[in-house]
């Protein structure tokens, strides 16, 4: 079973993507903490998340002492290294959930990405950004690109997500 742990930094943009439901074609289940749901503000994101939850494709994961412990460890590592931007609870819990349930971390959060690059042993799980999700969709022929120009167009959509 292919699991993904999403955070808000990914969702704020992905929820605006006109093919946002494609995410269901590459993961079997999406895991989120209540922190992600608590932050939802836009109607598009709310519609998207409500649909995923009602179809049973998204699951709200309760946090246990295990995730708390992982989160504490990651925050301590981040705090000890000035190269790592400040980690915030929504993102750090998404990572903790991914570590507990062996899920792919899907994020656009800078601190998480920096932490993964500088301390790969702390986050053994793969991290995917929108570009990796799109690439997987191309790989599975969900999104079809026939030329380099088209692939670049998809790339530009990642850069200017509001145009998707």
């Amino acid at each position, binding site marked *: 079973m292919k699991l993904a742990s999403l955070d808000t*930094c990914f969702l*704020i943009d992905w929820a605006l993507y006109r093919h946002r439901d494609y995410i269901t074609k590459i993961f079997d289940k999406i895991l989120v903490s209540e922190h992600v749901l608590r*932050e939802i503000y836009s109607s598009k994101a709310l519609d998207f998340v409500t649909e995923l939850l009602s179809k049973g494709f998204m699951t709200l994961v309760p946090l246990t002492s295990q995730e708390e412990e992982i989160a504490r460890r990651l925050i301590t590592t981040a705090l000890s290294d000035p190269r790592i*931007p*400040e980690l*915030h609870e929504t993102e750090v819990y998404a990572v903790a959930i991914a570590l507990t349930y062996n899920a792919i971390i899907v994020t656009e959060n800078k*601190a998480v990405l920096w932490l993964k690059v500088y301390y790969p042993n702390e986050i053994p799980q793969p*991290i995917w950004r929108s570009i*990796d999700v799109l690439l997987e969709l191309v790989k599975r022929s969900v999104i079809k690109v026939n030329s380099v120009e088209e692939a670049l167009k998809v790339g530009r959509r990642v850069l200017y*997500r509001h145009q998707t």
Partner: protein
Amino acid sequence: MAYPTELLTPKDLEVLEEWGRRVRREKANWKFINSLPDKFRKALEYYIETGDIRAASVKFDINIYLLNELRIKAGIPSTI
């Protein structure tokens, strides 16, 4: 197949950081940004310099979705 994010190295992060800042500065609609109330203008300026929307939303106490909507209206690309 390796995915782009998995291949990133510390050196790549430095390059991405510099490139992202340049692109955000260049593409931003400064007229729009400067027309915003102080709090929102400063938050977008912070995002342009750091590429960290979470940090910008926390630092200026703005909901991250709302700040992202402002980012889009200001024509600032979403980059790390």
